């Protein structure tokens, strides 16, 4: 089964002719993802790694009516527009890789997409992979392995680190979701957990959080309420981060004393979630709960 992306996923790459769009189209194709079309305004008629390019999503969908997922590599100034175009063209899932989108734009397009029942992942995220089925993102495919443990994470590279460690330890993944590092994102921990709770393939969940915001605390509260029954292992990055400093991600900042490492770990622990001290301890903790 897996969630969000799977065998039925048919992808349109928005911004396919750009450096990153083109590069990752190639990698997604190599992974086996069904990339059916690309869109770049003014570049209609081209091909990128054998994928036909259209000027608009409308034309792409007309030619490829089975397309259901978009991945956006468009620069920050134009990315919001690309999201509206994807939603209006009938995509069910829109993965926004782009970094640096103004947060007021994100909150508008996320509200818009939600009002149309469309799921947004990101912005500023690595995407989603269901190993062995489909990869809609920028993660290196070879470090993943099909299996029964889901990962949901605010951090891209940390996700790779953990997935790699799981794989090396023989633990495969059902779906790995990089939800993104911005303060406002389309799918939060709680929303991702809800999907994973219902996914028959997923037997355990790894949650990779960061300092800043209260998403981890909300996830903990959800578990405490009994809404997630599958075992969860968590890790929170930023144990040693100083207060009031933005640690790269706009979302990763301890402000007004909230969003601290300590507060998050306490909330998770109280909910019965095991919190790993280092990400490399995760495989062991996962083995214990599987």
């Amino acid at each position, binding site marked *: 089964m897996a969630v969000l992306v799977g065998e039925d996923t048919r992808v349109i790459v928005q911004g396919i002719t750009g450096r*990153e769009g083109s590069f990752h189209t190639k990698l997604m194709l190599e992974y086996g993802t069904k990339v059916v079309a690309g869109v770049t305004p003014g570049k209609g008629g081209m091909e990128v790694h054998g994928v036909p390019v259209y000027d608009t999503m409308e034309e792409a969908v007309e030619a490829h009516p089975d397309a259901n997922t978009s991945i956006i590599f468009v620069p920050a100034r134009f990315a919001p527009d690309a999201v509206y175009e994807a939603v209006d063209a009938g995509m069910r899932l829109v993965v926004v890789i782009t970094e640096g989108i103004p*947060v007021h734009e994100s909150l508008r397009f996320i*509200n818009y997409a939600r009002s149309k029942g469309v799921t947004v992942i990101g912005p500023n995220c690595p995407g989603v992979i269901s190993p062995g089925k489909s990869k809609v993102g920028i993660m290196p495919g070879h470090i993943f392995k099909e299996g029964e443990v889901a990962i949901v994470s605010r951090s891209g590279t*940390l996700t790779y*680190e953990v997935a790699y460690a799981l794989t090396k330890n023989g633990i495969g993944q059902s779906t790995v979701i990089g939800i993104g*590092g911005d*303060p406002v994102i389309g799918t939060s921990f709680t929303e991702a957990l809800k999907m994973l709770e219902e996914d028959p393939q997923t037997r355990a969940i790894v949650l990779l959080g960061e300092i800043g915001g209260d998403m981890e605390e909300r996830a903990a509260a959800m578990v405490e309420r009994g809404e997630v029954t599958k075992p969860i292992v968590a890790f929170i*990055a*930023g144990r040693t981060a100083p207060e009031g400093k933005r640690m790269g991600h706009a979302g990763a900042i301890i402000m007004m004393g909230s969003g601290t490492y300590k507060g998050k770990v306490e909330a998770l622990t109280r909910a019965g979630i095991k919190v790993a001290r280092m990400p490399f301890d995760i495989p062991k903790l996962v083995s214990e709960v599987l």
Partner: protein
Amino acid sequence: MKLFEYEAKQLLAKYGVEVPPSILVRKGEDVKSKILEAGLEPPVVVKAQVLVAGRGKAGGIKLARSIDEAVEIAERLFETPIKGVVPKLLLIEKAVEHEAELYTAIVIDRSERKPVILASRFGGMDIEEIAREKPESIVRRLVDPYVGLRQYEARLIGKKIGLTGKALASYAKFLQALYRLFTEYDGELAESNPIAVVGDKVIPLDARLIVDDNSLYRHPELGGERIEESGEYTEWEVKARKAGLTFVELDGNIGIISNGAGLTMTTMDLVLEYGGKPANFLDIGGGARADLVKKAVSFLLEYPKAEKIFINIFGGITRGDEVARGIVAALRELGEIEKPIVVRLAGTNEEEGRKILSEAGINAYTDPIEAVKRVMEL
């Protein structure tokens, strides 16, 4: 990016909000004649225009009962560092007698993905203090970003913090202007504290606006980032920002370069776990190319706190070959390597990167724990 109080007030005034009459003085200007020219009658408040938090408590805001006193205070403030920042500008503002002080802020509610208004009848205190001492006084209201803040909602909030009659109408107008400021200037925070209640109307005595850095391209009139003026950054952080690097200075001696905020923080945590102390946070972000990597490495080579350098890269959108090329270029340029460097490389184009590094005589690790152990040995 934080705006200065006087800038936020100018924007509010543009949206029709009455602010206290004031003048702005620069160091070296004749304060007395500027006050007289503007017809500003004492008492006045002299306010250091600095971007540090807690400016008032740190002595940056002083009441003057005469013009001479104002001049004296101004001279003194121009010499006084406020939490480490010496003000370059002062706002001298007519003191406003008032009956009550209110608090209002607008931020983004991350989980609701909507702007949220926070208001309290207890202004003057900061929001953490209010939340601790008078939590029941805080009115919270989400705003639909497509509809905006309706007048009735502004009135409802005003009523809930105890206003009635004309003062309520005045507050509602003020709040709609603050909301407009928040949205039109891509605010992360728009705050006014305290807001004075003066008979029939409300007057903001302070105003803060933090603009989303990602939106600065569409607000050229704000004049770009105030890196030095902000008082938020150390000398090396200022240097880094100017060079386009995402860098935070820390107290240890192990320089860190990594990609992605989560992995960079984890690298810090890892160093600590193995007994080291990170000298910094330096995240080259997603998709860094060789020139950025080179810049980052060169920066840490110069940064004195970093006695050794730990580069921990797991490539996704970032490619191993680009990282390797950047490292090699930085070392080549510096000629003689003065600091020990340990590289860990995994992920996209890992093999290509490893090859480039080994040709330059650098052996890159795959396992981060082996790498960090090596760092500690050096």
